[in-house]
């Protein structure tokens, strides 16, 4: 099986780091970042969170982004998820140049191309699990009957069929995170972005959630997980190590 993996162009790109810095994006890649800078101005001082990061992500990859706190990994995550825009550099997502998009277009990308899973779940407290999962579809303009159907299917895919009408405060941490995962998946995003998805969960529940991510990856989803836990990162197939706003190491582990 390993020779199939080696034959993939993704690995060629991986083996040829020059392609990262030549400024041209890789049209075959799902995500193609070139010389991405993120600069914050704190008074007169400029703080660089990212110093020209370049990398590609291909469809179906399972990537972990690791690094110490303050390394810029969360910034990178927000940029990938279009919650934030780069100060400089080019970002292509699914062949579209995100760096040139306005607010509405970025909202559309977040709605349809990206599914977010957060450490603190970020569910609407007053809404039921079903309504939380429906939320992206509401902003996607999906009619209510189809919306219910899709949201219920997404919830049953994460084993929450019997918790559809529960509110977050009636659910355990693991169940909440599964609602969040269902919400992230319901509109079939191109990438599933998870920011410390197990950070607020106990070890057992963490393993369950990571098993779920594994399964989702098996089903063909592209997954990027930001974590500082090595056993979580070890489940991925490729690890990007970030330090001081740069990719220190980009290794394929499986």
């Amino acid at each position, binding site marked *: *099986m390993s020779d199939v993996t080696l034959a993939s162009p993704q690995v060629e790109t991986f083996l040829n780091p020059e392609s990262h810095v030549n400024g041209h994006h890789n049209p075959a890649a799902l995500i193609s970042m070139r010389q991405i800078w993120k600069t914050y101005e704190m008074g007169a001082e400029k703080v660089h969170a990212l110093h020209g990061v370049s990398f590609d992500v291909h469809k179906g990859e399972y990537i972990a982004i690791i690094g110490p706190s303050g390394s810029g990994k969360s910034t990178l995550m927000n940029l990938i998820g279009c919650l934030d825009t780069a100060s400089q550099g080019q970002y292509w997502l699914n062949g579209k140049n995100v760096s040139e998009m306005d607010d509405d277009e970025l909202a559309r990308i977040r709605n349809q191309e990206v599914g977010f899973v957060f450490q603190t779940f970020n569910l609407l407290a007053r809404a039921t699990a079903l309504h939380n999962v429906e939320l992206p579809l*509401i902003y996607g303009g999906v009619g209510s009957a189809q919306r219910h159907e899709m949201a219920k299917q997404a919830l049953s895919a994460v084993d929450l069929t019997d918790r559809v009408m529960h509110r977050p405060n009636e659910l355990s941490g693991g169940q909440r995170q599964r609602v969040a995962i269902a*919400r992230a998946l319901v509109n079939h995003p191109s990438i599933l972005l998870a920011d410390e998805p197990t950070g607020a969960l106990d070890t057992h529940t963490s393993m369950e959630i990571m098993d779920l991510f594994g399964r989702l990856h098996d089903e063909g989803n592209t997954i990027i997980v930001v974590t500082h836990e090595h056993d979580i990162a070890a489940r991925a197939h490729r690890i990007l190590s970030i330090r001081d706003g740069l990719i220190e190491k980009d290794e394929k582990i499986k």
Partner: protein
Amino acid sequence: MNLRKKSYTPIYLAGAALRGRPFSRRGGGHGVPPPKNPRRLNLPERVRRQPVFRFAAIWEAFLVATSSLRANKLRTALTLVGIVVGVSAVIAVVTIIKGLDKTVATTFSSQGSTVFTVSKNPQIIKSREEFIKFNKRKDVTPDDEDAIARLCTTCWRVGIAANAVQTVKYADQTSENVRIRGVTPTTMFDVDGVTIDAGRIWTEGEGGSGRDVCVVGPDVLKNLFAGASADRAVGQEIRVAGRLYQIIGVLEPLGSIFGFSRDNVVYIPYVSYQKAFGARNSVVIFIQVQTAEQLEAAEDQVRTIMRNRRGRTFGDQDDEGFALETQDVFLDLYGKATSNIYLVTIGVAAVSLVVGGIVVMNIMLVSVTERTKEIGIRKAVGARQKDILTQFLIEAVTVTAIGGAFGVFTGFGLAYLISALIGFPLLINVASAVLGVGVSSVVGIISGLWPAWRAARLDPIEALRAE
């Protein structure tokens, strides 16, 4: 783990992976059936449209608005107070004044704009100086009426009326503060706009000879005969100022104005009135013309006649020596009074709506701050700035529209209470209800705009970080 290793062929599966069918190629390529996974995500085709106008998002905004208003009931109620006060003040005053307008219009149309009067004192005396001046005037007498009736060619009906307020008795029943109206000739009933319900009016012969007969208003019947039928009262004798008067007729009711009944009246012939109250009183001459267009000409003629009789020449503006008035003086006074009331009310309403608007704005800002996290979540899953803006605008408008609706109801309630107390018709004006809710909705939009804009402009990352 073994399974995952086998499955990792991302590039070749890229197209299929997006559609959630990663196994097809793998299965086909190696002749191995794809592993069955009963929990596979099997969703309908994903939806890739984002129309400009999204009913789902607007309906969501409305649901969110109402649920957040329900979640903060006390706050919502306090927020509404300003709007409710403003709108109910306007609704109540508009409704009351509309009712009064109706009353006034029907009241004065019974005499109409074809009637004017000549009297010693005008009906409205504005100062002490005027009072002294008017008291020096000669009394208006039946001789003046006689002269007008003879000389005024455009005048149609000319008559005399003198009023006194007396206690009226029948058997052991008494009724106080009854208006005794001595009139002649009998066309004065037409000038006054009253009609006979039962019995008859006196003949000119009876009137001229000073017979003690009377025609009573329905209130007299009610107060002295315990509501007996009009026919039974006819022929009975009532006592006024020590004299007995035989009832020969009962009038149709006219209703009341500003809480004062116009039916508490006893008409007697003027000659009879003079016998009871003396001949030395000033009278009021009533003149009616046939059409409103003739009114001015008749007024000019009557003014000339009266000036001659008072020995004044045309152009002497010091004092004419008499008062010539139409019912317009009442209408003018009424119009001035109501327009002042309108102005004050609009002022009160404007102030309370502005204050209410500021309160709504403040509460909306609090709401935006409290729900920063929610805004972040919504933005993260694809809400655009205009979606968030719409959501908070809808929330603000919902609050103020509810306040406006409450205001409309309390306003009508207030008007109902007052109309029941004073006694005028209650005219529920749909337009003013729509206006009340409409204006408060506009207040909602204006005061919600800034908080909603702030919410829409929130940075999603900052918003998500909020607690």
